[in-house]
């Protein structure tokens, strides 16, 4: 890449969010009948709600950014736009490198499959190929600490075991950009420490992290930059300590 003058090689951009807005329709039970009626009367269907309103954000390679804000401020929506799950109404999102959106751990898990099968399925969903999953399989299982139950169907797992395995798969994928939404509240305290340790490792490897969390102490220890959102707008983009102080 041709680096713009004045920026060092370490600040290569990986995520660019440019003037992004996103609106949601509040009414979801739309049917053809309702559509026909509204077309006939020329009326809009229900209200719209602006989740994001003209958001700009640039994230450099290797940065760890926390998205902060109250419930409904648009943090998770922004994360979904970056991951590509949703697309913006206006503006654009650009990313460079492979993304793993850990919007919710275990989203691709199926209760009727065994732990082993789910590791492979979820790994493939998160973008790993067969050989990579095979190579990391033992590591993943060891991380989750549920070796004994790996060939049991996941529906018999306790919720803690389920989350452990799901998290283990997620943090052993190999993307350049990790998007993490409130998933660190996993398992008991020792396991949480282990997860945080793994996230720090990922950071140290130079991966970009974008984290949404309400756990201010945790993000303060993990990130170096905080972006505060309020009703869909960026109200502050500063170092993590000042950003966290705004919310305290």
């Amino acid at each position, binding site marked *: 890449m041709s680096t713009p*003058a004045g*920026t060092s090689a370490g600040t290569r951009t990986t995520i660019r969010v440019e003037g992004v807005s996103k609106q949601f329709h509040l009414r*979801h039970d739309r*049917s053809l009948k309702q559509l026909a009626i509204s077309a006939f009367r020329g009326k809009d269907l229900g209200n719209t709600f602006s989740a994001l309103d003209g958001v700009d*954000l640039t994230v450099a390679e290797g940065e760890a950014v926390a998205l902060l804000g109250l419930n409904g401020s648009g943090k998770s929506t922004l994360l979904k736009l970056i991951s590509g*799950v*949703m697309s913006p109404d206006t503006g654009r999102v*650009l990313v460079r490198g492979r993304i793993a959106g850990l919007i919710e751990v275990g989203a691709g898990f199926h209760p009727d499959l065994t732990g082993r099968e789910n590791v492979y399925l979820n790994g493939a969903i998160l973008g790993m190929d067969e050989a990579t999953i095979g190579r990391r399989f033992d590591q993943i299982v060891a991380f989750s600490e549920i070796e004994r139950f790996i060939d049991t169907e996941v529906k018999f797992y306790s919720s803690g075991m389920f989350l452990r395995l799901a998290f283990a798969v997620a943090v052993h994928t190999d993307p350049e950009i990790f998007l993490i939404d409130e998933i660190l509240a996993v398992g008991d305290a020792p396991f949480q420490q282990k997860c945080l340790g793994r996230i720090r490792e990922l950071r140290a490897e130079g991966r970009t992290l974008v984290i949404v969390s309400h756990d201010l102490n945790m993000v303060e220890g993990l990130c170096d930059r905080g972006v505060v959102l309020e009703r869909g707008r960026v109200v502050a983009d500063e170092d993590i300590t000042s950003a966290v102080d705004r919310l305290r």
Partner: protein
Amino acid sequence: MTAARPAGGDAGAADGFVVPGRGRGLLDVFERRYLLKLLVRKELRVRYQGSFLGLLWSYVKPAVQFAVFYFALGVFLQQRDVVQNYAVYLFSGIVVINFFSETFGNATRAVVANAPLVKKIYLPRELFPVSSAWVAGVHFVPQLVVLLAGTLVAGWRPTPVQLLAGVLGFVTVALLAVGLGLFFGSINVLFRDFENIVDLMLLVVTWTSPVLYTWNLVQAQLPEWLWFVYQLNPVTSAVELFHHAFWFGSTDGDPALVPPDLLWFALSAFGLAVLVLVAGQLTFRRLEGRFAQEL
């Protein structure tokens, strides 16, 4: 506001930036075929989980269906006296319709059925309708085996051209069903009415093609232009191609058994199926951006 923004300005996609969530559609499905394989395997595992007969159920259903039609139409309405090897004739049409119906019906529901995934992780969403087609393909194989056994007993001696006709028929139906599945499946995310519309279409499809009766009965009853429309139906062509492949070789070979211009209608059916697939893919891509928020 954005402190870390580089001063360079609008370099855009040229720098290796991509727009997330904008894939290459069906091409991405091919690239992620390992995931496709796992999704198909999951679907098959889950469907027969805890059932004693397991995959054998995929024999039972068409067997019962066949028996009902055979007795009602073949015996009571005496089609077996009119059509040579009526059992083979009937079954070679039924397997096409079953494959078409299963693919089309499940592909239409595929995106909605996988809502938890679609909402949380970006994947090429075409994976779901395509995996429906593979699952239907897996169910098609045992039916084909039964069909081959039956027609061999009835004295089937196929020519290579006839076998090619079978392949063309299968490919046509597969492309058509996936195309329709992409089209209706993506609209179904916005308006759930379409599941029911598709069910209606599937109810009709067995009867709008010469599966239970022969084409000459239709030709005798319909005006010229409507007969032409009837033949334009790609499913009709596929059924006739299957008759040509698996039934015609077991009859006395009277050329009058083959519908007129089968080759031309088969080629037009293939062309139509490709067009439907393209239209389905374009519609799917157009609506895909709204899936996550509408589910």
